[in-house]
């Protein structure tokens, strides 16, 4: 019921276009309406939309299902999630615009350290050009020239991939300096914590088994019998906290960021 039947027929196409146009007009109308309304009216609209959207997902979850694992709302879940993806894509455009605007201003107004902004802008344009061209060439829309192939390889394989790996590697160095600074026995609890950490650190690597055949077993016992229950308890709390927050937001019981 939520999908257009035969979208490739002329009638299907017409219905599709009417839906797209209707949604466009509705959204275009909603933006000035929200701006024109006083804060109270604006809030009322947000409260209503939030409630209806939440009700949709909650009802779909709680209603009984048929043999095909569906109730009358299930087919509408996928279009609803696709709508969320459309909103995310629009927000990504907004975020990129904000980033470029900021750095353009930095360069134009020669603000402090504007050189970094220039590097960002050049990287942004070059990377975007090659990525888009590469995608188009994969779809056969543009020719895959040696410049495009080599340029993309240089930017993607030899630059982005390596920079990504380098950033992740930094964590190892930071763990070292943070552990050196933080693991100080200032109390009995800190001593127990440090001892446990050392047993696990040595027990989980082959060196542990070389030192003593019992060490890996002890380390595994700490992970499964001490770590897992504590984590489960924390996750229960987090889950309940998230559920309570979701209910408050759904019913607009707290002002939060709205």
């Amino acid at each position, binding site marked *: 019921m939520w999908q257009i039947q035969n979208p490739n027929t002329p009638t299907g196409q017409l219905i599709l276009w009417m839906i797209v146009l209707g949604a466009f007009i509705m959204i275009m109308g909603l933006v000035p309406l929200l701006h024109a309304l006083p804060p109270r009216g604006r809030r009322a609209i947000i409260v209503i939309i939030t409630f209806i959207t939440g009700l949709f997902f909650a009802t*779909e*979850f*709680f*209603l*009984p*299902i*048929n*043999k095909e*694992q569906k*109730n009358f709302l299930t087919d509408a879940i996928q279009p609803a999630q696709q709508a969320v993806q459309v*909103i*995310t894509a629009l*927000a*990504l*455009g*907004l*975020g*990129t615009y*904000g*980033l470029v605007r*900021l750095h353009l*201003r930095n360069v134009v107004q020669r603000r402090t*350290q504007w050189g*970094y902004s220039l590097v960002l802008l050049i990287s942004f344009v070059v990377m975007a050009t090659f990525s888009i061209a590469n995608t188009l060439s994969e779809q056969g829309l543009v020719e895959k020239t040696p410049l495009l192939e080599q340029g993309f390889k240089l930017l993607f394989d030899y630059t982005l991939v390596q*920079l*990504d790996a380098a*950033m*992740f590697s*930094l*964590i190892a160095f*930071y*763990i070292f*300096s*943070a*552990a050196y*600074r*933080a*693991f100080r026995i200032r109390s009995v609890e800190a001593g127990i914590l440090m001892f446990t950490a050392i047993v696990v650190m040595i027990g989980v690597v082959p060196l542990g088994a070389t030192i003593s055949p019992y060490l890996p077993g002890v380390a595994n016992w700490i992970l499964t019998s001490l770590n897992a229950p504590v*984590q489960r308890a*924390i*996750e*229960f*709390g*987090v889950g*309940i*906290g*998230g*559920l*309570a*927050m*979701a*209910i*408050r*937001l759904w*019913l607009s*019981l*707290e002002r*939060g*960021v709205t």
Partner: protein
Amino acid sequence: METLWLSGLAQYQHAADNWFAAILIAVIATTVLVSIAITRSGASLYIRRIPGLDAIDEAIGRSTEMGRPVTMIPGMTAFGVVAVQALTIFKYITKQIARFATPMRLLTGDATVYAVAQEAIQDAYNEAGRPDLYDPDAIRFLSDRQFAFASGVAGLIQRERVAANFMFGEFFAESLIFAETGNIVGAIQVAGTISFTQVPFFVAACDYTIIGDEFYATSAYLSREPVLLGSLVGQDIAKLLFVLIAITGAVLTSIFGADAPVVKLLGQPGGWDAFFGGGQ
């Protein structure tokens, strides 16, 4: 239409996959709502001290004295309840900052959070009576790629030598890059996260760390709003309920074994069906 009250084919896509779990969700929701209603009617409540949150004002004061910015980082948190909670905390911090005109930066790796953060921070300055201090460029979306975002944040913390760094939300491997860079420049750091695996890194590199459901208690602690305090009471009752279920499950498993229908009823897809023998 034939209705199956339990499918047993897929996991938790619908309440019918295990009605026990669905009923439990409904009971928790009711408990929270009733607690909110009771608190709204005037019950006074006590909330224990959370040192990390008391340190927020101290950190802001230090930034003001040093004339260096405050950074607020929700990380790569996607838009959802965690992001909303993080932005609520950042809104509170911004209101405090607005009193002293301390510069701030909010750095996010999620574009939707960026859009909402702009509104929230502008609201915070308006509510503090200083709309003139709002700078849209202070809220920045850096990248949605994890380590590009991490390098952007680390670079900004280094270049601007921030004096206070607040990290609230969901974090992944990039957490230590933020926290250790903040430590290098000598910033006071407060982190709050639901990401269990990142807690050790924050504890090692930050001055204060808020763990697990304390993250959700933060807005109640800061604002002391009856709705939020009531919700906390409801959450505590729900936690007691979970403790009871866990103990019951342990006892029943010890007596009847893990495959007994009564044990499966307590939390396994298909458990309702196994217990009631079809349930149609």
